[in-house]
């Protein structure tokens, strides 16, 4: 009797172990390929930030703290006030989109502030991407928005406040109506 119970216990624990192992090394149901990523693995690559602020990490920054980050890491390519280049203009162009010489910048064109945080975090500086700390990303974001007159110099940007920033061109986008040139022929 005792032996039988022990045998049952062993069998049960082996089964539990098998289930656990299967969960850890789960494979796809139809073809039996792939494995389950660990939470740490997922966290490492799950870097996108959406307009509702999902994906933002803890941290904070203001334009005041961002001036230093900008001068050290951004100015060489984007110029002292974000207008001079040589690379892409970050500020200016307000009210120019409907003119014959539109100037697209973060302030005149970008619809979401979260996109700016996401892009600085994933891709900037161009030759050293993914080297800024979360505080530096919040600070640089705040400084670029400040250059565009969208936030004040002391406004704190963090996980909660950044998604609430209203971008001037938020409602400037329309759906694709093509085919838009009516040239249907028999």
């Amino acid at each position: 009797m005792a032996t039988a119970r022990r045998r049952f216990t062993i069998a049960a624990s082996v089964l539990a172990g098998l289930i656990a192992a299967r969960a850890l090394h789960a494979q796809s149901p139809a073809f039996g390929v792939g494995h389950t990523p660990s939470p740490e693995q997922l966290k490492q690559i799950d870097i996108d930030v959406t307009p509702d602020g999902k994906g933002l990490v803890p941290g904070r920054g203001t334009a005041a703290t961002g001036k230093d980050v900008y001068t050290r890491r951004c100015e060489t390519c984007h110029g002292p006030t974000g207008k001079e280049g040589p690379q892409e203009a970050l500020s200016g162009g307000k009210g120019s989109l409907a003119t014959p010489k539109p100037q697209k910048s973060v302030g005149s064109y970008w619809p979401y502030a979260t996109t700016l945080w996401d892009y600085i975090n994933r891709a900037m500086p161009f030759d050293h991407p993914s080297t800024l700390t979360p505080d530096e990303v919040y600070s640089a974001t705040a400084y670029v928005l400040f250059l565009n007159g969208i936030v004040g110099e002391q406004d704190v940007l963090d996980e909660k406040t950044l998604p609430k920033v209203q971008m001037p061109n938020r409602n400037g986008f329309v759906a694709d109506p093509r085919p838009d040139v009516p040239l249907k022929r028999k």
Partner: protein
Amino acid sequence: MQNARSRSRRRFLGLGAAWSAALVACRGKSAAPPVEPKALGAAVSPYGSRSKFEKTARFFNQNTKVPLEEASSRTPLHDTYGIITPSSLHFERHHSGVPEIDPSIHTLTIHGLVDRPLVFGVDELKRLPSVSRIHFLECSGNSGGEWRGGSTESDVQRIHGLTSCSEWTGVPVATLLHECGVHPDATWVLAEGADASKHDRSIPMSKIMDDAMVAYGQNGEPLRPEQGYPLRLLLPGWEGNANVKWLRRLKVMREPAMSREETSKYTDLMPDGTARQFTFHLEAKSIITRPSGGDTLVPGAFCEVTGIAWTGRGTIVSVEVTTDGGATWHQAELQKPVLRIAHTRFRFPWKWDGKDTLIASRCTDDTGYTQPPLPELIKVRGMNSQYHNNGIQAWKVASDGTITNGNRA
């Protein structure tokens, strides 16, 4: 025509006077009677390369403030034949350089709104049921210089070289998503690359389930590094940059991520200041590739007019050619088989009468849509929309036989 070809090719390569002198010297030698080689030829070799006499190459502008890691190089459409672009001449557009990726450690992770997030190795993907399809890829910025009413660029490679066509082999993304179990409320998939800038685009679930592919093969061998080795997303008929290269992650979502590339870039600005967002399809387009800008015609001599046509919405059903500035249009012959969402080669026999004229092609696809004249597109979209120009390309033939960009008024 041959001399003009040499001239334009020299210009492409940016070679100087020394090369000109060498060419003259070569021509002098080649005038001697041809001698068949009597010595043994080269032995077999592990990986083939083209003849040393062939020099055609991708073109890229080196005198630009744009770093070459985020520049583009263009396919020599004038000097490629049929419908397949050699992998080595496929156009490039990178956002932060070509990463060097070891396929034995590269993985594709699928997560987000799925029952089972899964990580796949490259070899695992190669074990799954595969598909091979011939599709064109075109950068949405192709021909973008023409939006201002015709550019000063004069040859087909510089104006239109951001389109190429390959046979792609891979796994339907639908197969992979079925393995992961997609939640019913999922409507978008974010695709992200493993390049330095982690290039990312949001793709509607309908396209993903319809014909999207995780490709690992191009023209019978693994993808070239410039084309996303070891894995890329392929979205037949949709703008190039959404076909994310060096694919490392697919995240199933409810809304688009609104990444930099799908908001501040690759959106088409209209004259009223609004911008179109998500303009994924590439519409029907054709171009005459020979004869084209840089060539010189000989009066009265036979000259085949040939080019390519394609549409992101289906299949090309006809291509018409005009050699009299649009007064009359003639059906060109389409190379069979005509494939869906692929370059379609067309040909039309012609003899130039020695008078100045405009030549052009226009195509129609199986949705009934006909490629419009460029001015018609500009009338609707203005001159600043930058992307998705599929207007008719005219080539101007001068009375001395030289050909230049005919889009300029």
